[in-house]
């Protein structure tokens, strides 16, 4: 249908989607920290594979693979730069250990991307907005966030309508060089901006009419409550951190090269 289809959020229910976004965020940060803690490839591989059950439980494997593919270019770049630097600094020697090191650095990056993408793929915007509201983020920000998400599909649809209308009048969007193509979009952007401004005025009017700013002590229809699954994830997170710290200080991690 529309080129903006990917921007539309969908409600999905899965054990992972239902988790409290705050706990999920803590989990992601913990993975982040552990990934920074290790530079050896074995623990990073373990971290990488540990995310897969989450992805499968949440049934977001397709989107997840897509985000990994998106990171592939940067990952290759990191790998090449790492190999090259060690190659030149170690006097033009290419050892297995060096390649393994570079692979570990790359894997660290992939783990970071992977865990953040699991978070964003499995947290619905209203959950995220609610988490923002319940953290000490000023309500205005949380409101701006959810309202922006609310209007993404509306504006996308409008952009599509305007594009169709301008095309019907002979506008050719896909013609010319890069600069020309960018300039082609001006007749689409201007009506879109004008209408967005009008829309925002109407929104402001509607907000005022519904007692926006009546009291500093705003209440909330929903309350984020921790369930069994959240406590389980919290326990897993603490477990991961504990094991990671123990291994980091008390276990000497072999490299794959030395094992072979």
């Amino acid at each position, binding site marked *: 249908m529309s080129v903006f289809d990917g921007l539309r959020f969908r409600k999905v229910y899965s054990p992972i989607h239902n988790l409290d976004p705050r706990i999920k965020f803590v989990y992601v940060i913990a993975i982040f920290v552990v990934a920074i803690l290790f530079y050896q490839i074995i623990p990073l591989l373990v971290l990488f594979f540990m995310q897969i059950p989450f992805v499968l439980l949440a049934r977001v494997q397709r989107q997840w693979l897509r985000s990994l593919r998106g990171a592939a270019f940067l990952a290759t770049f990191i790998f090449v730069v790492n190999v090259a630097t060690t190659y030149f600094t170690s006097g033009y020697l290419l050892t297995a250990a060096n390649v393994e090191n570079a692979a570990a650095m790359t894997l660290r990056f992939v783990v970071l991307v992977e865990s953040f993408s699991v978070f964003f793929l499995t947290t619905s915007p209203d959950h995220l907005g609610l988490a923002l509201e319940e953290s000490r983020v000023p309500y205005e920000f949380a409101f701006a966030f959810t*309202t922006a998400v609310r209007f993404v599909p509306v504006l996308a649809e409008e952009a599509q309508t305007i594009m169709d209308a301008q095309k019907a009048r002979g506008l050719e969007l896909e013609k010319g060089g890069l600069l020309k193509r960018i300039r082609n979009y001006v007749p689409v952007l201007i009506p879109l901006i004008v209408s967005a401004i009008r829309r925002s005025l109407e*929104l402001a*009017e509607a907000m005022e*009419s*519904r007692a926006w700013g009546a009291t500093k002590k705003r209440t*909330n229809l929903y309350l984020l409550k921790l369930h069994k699954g959240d406590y389980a994830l919290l326990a897993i997170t603490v477990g991961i951190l504990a094991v990671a710290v123990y291994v980091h200080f008390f276990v000497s991690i072999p490299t794959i090269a030395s094992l072979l």
Partner: protein
Amino acid sequence: MAIIETKNLTYTYPGATKPSIVDVSIKVEKGEFVLITGPSGCGKTTLCRCFNGLVPHFYQGELKGEISVSGIDTLKHHTYEMAKHVGLVFQNPENQLFALSIEKDVAFGLENVGVSREEMRKKVDWALNQTGIYDIRERSPHEISGGQQQRVAIASVLAMEPEIIVLDEPTSFLDPLSAEKIFEVIYRLNKEQGITVILVEHRLDLTAKYTDHLIVMDEGKVRFEGDPRQILSSEETRLIGVGIPKATLLYQMLKKEGLNLGDKTPLSSEELADQLLEALSPQ
């Protein structure tokens, strides 16, 4: 005492050269169903904005004359204070819903004034039920039809339990069937909950039958106010550009031709059908 009363209300938007409403003096009693109509640009929306203080607090500009709504002088009180008394429903349903779920939108006003969660839940569910959208309360506004969106907008002002609901052309974006459903919801709120309703509409065909207080505006002024049967049968009303119901027009044509259907001017097809049947049936 009248629930809404204005005296010589005149308002000019900032930067405008001439006032958008001029010397408007109207009176609305508690529990009434008032219909406001008139050609585009005659100041209907502007008048609605006066009822909850958007004019002049939000729009600035110069307001002269007197206005009292629910016994409150809107000049001296903010729009957020008026929200408990007057609910405004706007023309475009899409631009008055901001949340990602319908029930969250309905709760928006109550959250703003700081109602406790338990009480909020009750009021939200009540408003959802009154407007017939309880079953879709968890959907997002983008997933529902325009008619449903407009019912959400009505529910979201209804949840505040206002004495007055003002609807500014609530059906101009809707198909006739959804429009009729909206009117039925409004009519029921007026009859069963005793909420005073002010409805701005062009579709008199569908709405004239609900009211016995019609206000016709033109060029910022109130041109006619009173019994719709009388106003809609006058020649002048038609010349201003008010969409007279077809049934009323037909009645007048038949009357001119000498067919007497009784003294009561019909406002809807149903009323005219009854009169015709009565006239045509052999005694």
